[in-house]
């Protein structure tokens, strides 16, 4: 082997080793967080944790059923509001958004994407909580939807742009109207990617706390009323972790583990959907 070839191989090996080490460091953060949560939280998770509401401060026992159900309701409503608007906006941007309006919408979406979530919370408080004189789950959902919409719009746009133009032309040449082409051919082809984007967006807002502090507020009791303050896992963690009781800290760790698990499940579903459908985009 010549000296030059030897040197090349050496450099190649060194670079490979370097990126492997860097990747491991990146993954390490997740492993440490997850491991810590399991160590400190798993022991507190029992049947009561999922089925009971919190007991008065200082007492032992109780669970976070109210927060789990609350998370499902608040995030679910946010998705109901945010997914149609976000995905619709993304379709518009990709299929029709080449003009000035498209440019404007894209710019606003990018700005909104970079807006700190606490600002969105304050905005929701100003326009919903203050005029209605009450904190509510619905206000929290709207705040989360506002966070979700620009994210979904941009990922949907990216996914729809991946659909080759030849497919659009083929549909149009077949006598498809523009809207039919967008829905029946383009959106269907990009569906896997769009669904993945939605799930990732939902997973992201599921962990949000700041926008909910000003809107859903939190609630120590179990409630299904969306016009009332409602507890979510993230709010629960915030309150319990900063509270003075050991019992609270214990429940905060367990709640964090459950929330993390929830996000993980959503993300894994997203990956699964991607494998199933998205591979079909050529």
């Amino acid at each position: 082997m010549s000296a030059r070839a030897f040197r090349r191989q050496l450099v190649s090996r060194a670079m490979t080793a370097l990126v492997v080490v860097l990747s491991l460091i990146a993954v390490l953060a997740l492993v440490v967080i997850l491991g810590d949560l399991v160590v400190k939280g798993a022991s507190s998770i029992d049947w009561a944790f999922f089925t009971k509401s919190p007991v008065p401060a200082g007492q032992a026992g109780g669970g976070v059923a109210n927060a789990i159900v609350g998370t499902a309701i608040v995030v679910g409503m946010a998705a109901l509001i945010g997914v149609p608007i976000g995905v619709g906006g993304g379709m518009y941007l990709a299929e029709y958004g080449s003009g000035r309006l498209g440019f404007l919408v894209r710019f606003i979406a990018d700005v909104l994407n970079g807006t700190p979530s606490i600002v969105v919370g304050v905005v929701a408080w100003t326009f919903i909580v203050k005029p209605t004189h009450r904190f509510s789950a619905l206000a929290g959902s709207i705040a989360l939807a506002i966070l979700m919409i620009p994210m979904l719009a941009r990922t949907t746009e990216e996914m729809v742009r991946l659909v080759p133009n030849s497919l659009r032309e083929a549909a149009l040449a077949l006598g498809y109207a523009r809207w039919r082409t967008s829905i029946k051919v383009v959106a269907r082809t990009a569906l896997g990617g769009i669904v993945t984007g939605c799930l990732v967006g939902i997973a992201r807002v599921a962990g949000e706390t700041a926008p909910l502090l000003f809107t859903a507020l939190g609630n120590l009791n179990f409630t299904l009323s969306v016009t009332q303050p409602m507890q979510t896992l993230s709010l629960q963690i915030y309150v319990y972790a900063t509270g003075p009781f050991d019992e609270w800290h214990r429940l905060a760790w367990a709640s964090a583990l459950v929330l993390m698990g929830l996000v993980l499940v959503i993300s894994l579903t997203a990956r699964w959907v991607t494998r199933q459908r998205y591979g079909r985009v050529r």
Partner: protein
Amino acid sequence: MVASANTRLRLETVRLTALFGHHRAVRDVSLLFPAHTVTAIIGPSGCGKSTLLRCLNRMHELTPDATVVGEVLLDNVNVYARDVNPIELRRRIGMVFQQPTPFPTMSIYDNVAAGLRVNGKRPRREMDEDVERALRQAALWDEVKDRLRTSALALSGGQQQRLCIARAVAPQPEILLLDEPTASLDPAGTQRIEELCHLLKRLYTIVIVTHNMQQAARVSDYTAFMYLGNLVEVGRTNELFTKPKVEQTEAYITGRFG
């Protein structure tokens, strides 16, 4: 109009100019496509042959900044007239592209049925018959009849292209436009498509764009030679290839340029 079905006028361009912005990609072309014949448009890359084809079913105007001057007459109606709906026009004119473009989320059956479904719901049995007829016309039926519900992407490139032909002919158009349909196929696939041209011209008026002169000679009844956006010469294929009237045509078909 001449009485014989073979020479009945169907499709014609009159002083057609196609522009991309200010660039004239097709210049003042008047060309007649006799019914139930195969007309080949040949010429070097960038000569405007694909653009001309795309003007016939108003696909050209979908490109930003693309415009058209002049007329395309389909049964003596200018397809660029204000009251002609391009979507309905395209249902009368099938088109097949360079690359096979099966819809990736649809089964073989749904791909063929795609163009039929735009006209509203129809009884299942009728749909089945139309799909079978289209697949038979594209000489694909025997190969796919046992797996109509499987993904169209599992087919080979040549099969995919024949699937696209089936999809294009399923709504029973009057005209079939082929834009270099064999550009991405191997010789066997190419031969099958060429054989199809001979069969399908009994049913449709075919216009085929090709950069392959041998292909034009094999499949077409008439050949039009274009160069730099201009229609240089048009005539019966055997005459154009054996005794071209224009110097430029001769130079091209004998391989001296292009």
